[in-house]
């Protein structure tokens, strides 16, 4: 299993968790202060190309942070699926960004830097923070006027890799090269507009840039872990669950789960669309194994009480999908024992038997019932009467509350 990020809530008491966040905040504030982010003229003069101190700190930090993140992910220390990646809301992001830019050049701070300015008693920083509180107030009062715009153009967890359809390592190299180029260009602009002599800066920065590029290349060479790599690691922990059939739930347990309102049940039917149209459980979603990887981010983002039940005609395909989902850190995934065939064996009513005709001989992962019409979920077996069935089974579903962060620094 990939050990990081830690799930603090389950490891530590709340005060200790908060202590860790306090320490992280402390380091954040300390570093912002030593970088000069409480000095508004420095922040503003980057927009006149005179002193690009803030620009340099900022892009260096992004690249260093990115390289450390993807390096630790490449070597299997950190699970990228479990860290918070800001979801993309395209147009509200663009308009909000432009408004922030206006605030930046007028006010000379951004929220983080204004807090450090306030903490170091800069009066302009104090005014900025006060204005900031008023800004939040105005936003709360006005956002309802355009909530469709605010919540529109939503693309979920969208990364640069998705947009450009490139491997992670390649994006990491490109971002690193772009940042190094921008930093170099920034120094040239400083020379022209700010009359600064780049020769006076320490030579070590060239070696530093070299190290960044080399690390980026190393990340690309190692590559990010594939589902197979992830499963290999996880098999040590979860392999036994598979052999002991801990992940296979009896049709009776699934039926009871329909009626358990404490759980958010998500049924994933991984059969072909044709089989799905013939018959499927009420509210089951049809997602073929090929489409599963696209859904993983949204599955991870679901509420903590979500239980996923994967089903195919038998168990072979659904077990493979279970491996993929579990390896990709989706929590609480189960497989319907015996698949749709066993479900129909258990719940097929006279109504279906009439429509379906007899059971037929069929191969592995084929439907053992012959349907004369595409019933979909329009028959009793798609949603059996709970009161009619009292089935004996061994309960398997246990909620694992270990979840990925459901909000970033912007809640």
């Amino acid at each position, binding site marked *: 299993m990939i050990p990081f990020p830690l799930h603090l809530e389950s490891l530590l008491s709340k005060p200790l968790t*908060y202590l860790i966040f306090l320490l992280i905040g402390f380091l954040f504030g300390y*570093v912002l202060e030593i970088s000069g982010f409480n000095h508004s003229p420095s922040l503003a003069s980057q927009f006149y190309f005179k002193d690009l101190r803030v620009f340099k700190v900022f892009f260096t930090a992004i690249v260093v942070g990115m390289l450390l*993140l993807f390096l630790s992910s490449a070597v299997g220390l950190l699970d990228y699926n479990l860290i918070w990646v*800001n979801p993309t809301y395209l147009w509200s*992001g663009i308009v909000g960004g432009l408004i922030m830019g206006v605030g930046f050049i007028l*006010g000379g701070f951004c929220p983080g830097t204004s807090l450090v300015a306030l903490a170091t008693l800069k009066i302009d920083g104090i005014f900025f923070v006060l204005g900031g509180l008023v800004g939040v*107030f105005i936003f709360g009062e006005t956002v309802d006027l355009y909530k469709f715009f605010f919540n529109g153009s939503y693309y979920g967890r969208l990364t640069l890799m998705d947009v450009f359809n490139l491997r992670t390592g390649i994006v990491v190299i490109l971002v690193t090269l772009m940042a190094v180029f921008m930093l170099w260009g920034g120094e040239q602009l400083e020379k022209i507009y700010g009359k600064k002599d780049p020769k006076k800066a320490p030579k070590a920065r060239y070696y*530093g840039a070299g190290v960044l590029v080399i690390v980026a290349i190393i990340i690309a060479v190692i590559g990010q872990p594939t589902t197979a790599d992830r499963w290999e690691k996880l098999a040590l922990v979860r392999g036994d669950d598979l052999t002991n059939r801990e992940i296979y739930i009896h049709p009776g347990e699934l039926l009871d789960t329909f009626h358990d309102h404490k759980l958010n049940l998500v049924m994933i039917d991984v059969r072909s669309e044709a089989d799905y149209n013939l018959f499927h459980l009420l509210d089951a979603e049809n997602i073929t194994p090929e489409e599963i990887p696209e859904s993983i981010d949204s599955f991870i983002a679901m509420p903590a009480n979500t239980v996923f039940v994967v089903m195919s005609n038998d168990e072979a395909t659904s077990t493979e999908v279970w491996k993929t989902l579990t390896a990709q850190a989706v929590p609480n995934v189960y497989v319907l024992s015996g698949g749709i065939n066993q479900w129909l064996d258990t719940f097929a009513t006279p109504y279906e038997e009439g429509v379906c005709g007899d059971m037929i001989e069929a191969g592995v992962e084929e439907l053992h019932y012959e349907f004369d019409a595409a019933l979909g979920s329009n028959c009793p077996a798609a949603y059996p009467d709970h009161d009619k069935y009292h089935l004996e089974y061994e309960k398997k579903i246990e909620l694992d509350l270990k979840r990925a962060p459901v909000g970033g*620094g912007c809640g």
Partner: protein
Amino acid sequence: MTENQKQEKQKFRLKDLFNRPSKPYANPYLGGVLLGMVLFTSYFITGNGLGASGGLSRIAAFVEDLIAPGHINQVPYLINLAGGQRNPLDNWIVIVTAGVLIGGFTSGVIHGRTKFETHKGPNISNQTRWLFAFLGGICFTYGARLARGCTSGQALSGGATLSAGSWVVMFSIFGGAYALAYFVRRLWN
């Protein structure tokens, strides 16, 4: 500790803490490397990045809750933060914000940069600077709420995790500021 520092410590007065000689800021690339490491540490341990505007909005919701408690429950955006019995301050991002204040203050004291002063361009008065800082603060957090994060939560944290939307926000912030810079150059030059 040198002899000199020891003597200073013996005659400790609170006033001295804020009147130490100011030291220059760190090299920007060094600052950037350290900031990147802090950002990574945050993701590595907690799965969350850094943020600042989220803390501000919760503090604003808290203040609003004190002034007009009934009103909070009528504004959908605020209900999420402080509706009903919810305490808007009981959230990790508020704790990070408190840490930022303490960390910034500590570094400022150590390096002799914690003192009451106003930084501004050479051609405007303090009052003008304060007014524009206030207006800038309003714009910035308004935009930050709209874009769901500011320079820390979106541009820095989202940038490092390669979120597509965060890169768009980042370029929009810099684009907006560069586009307007020429027209307000008197503020800073």
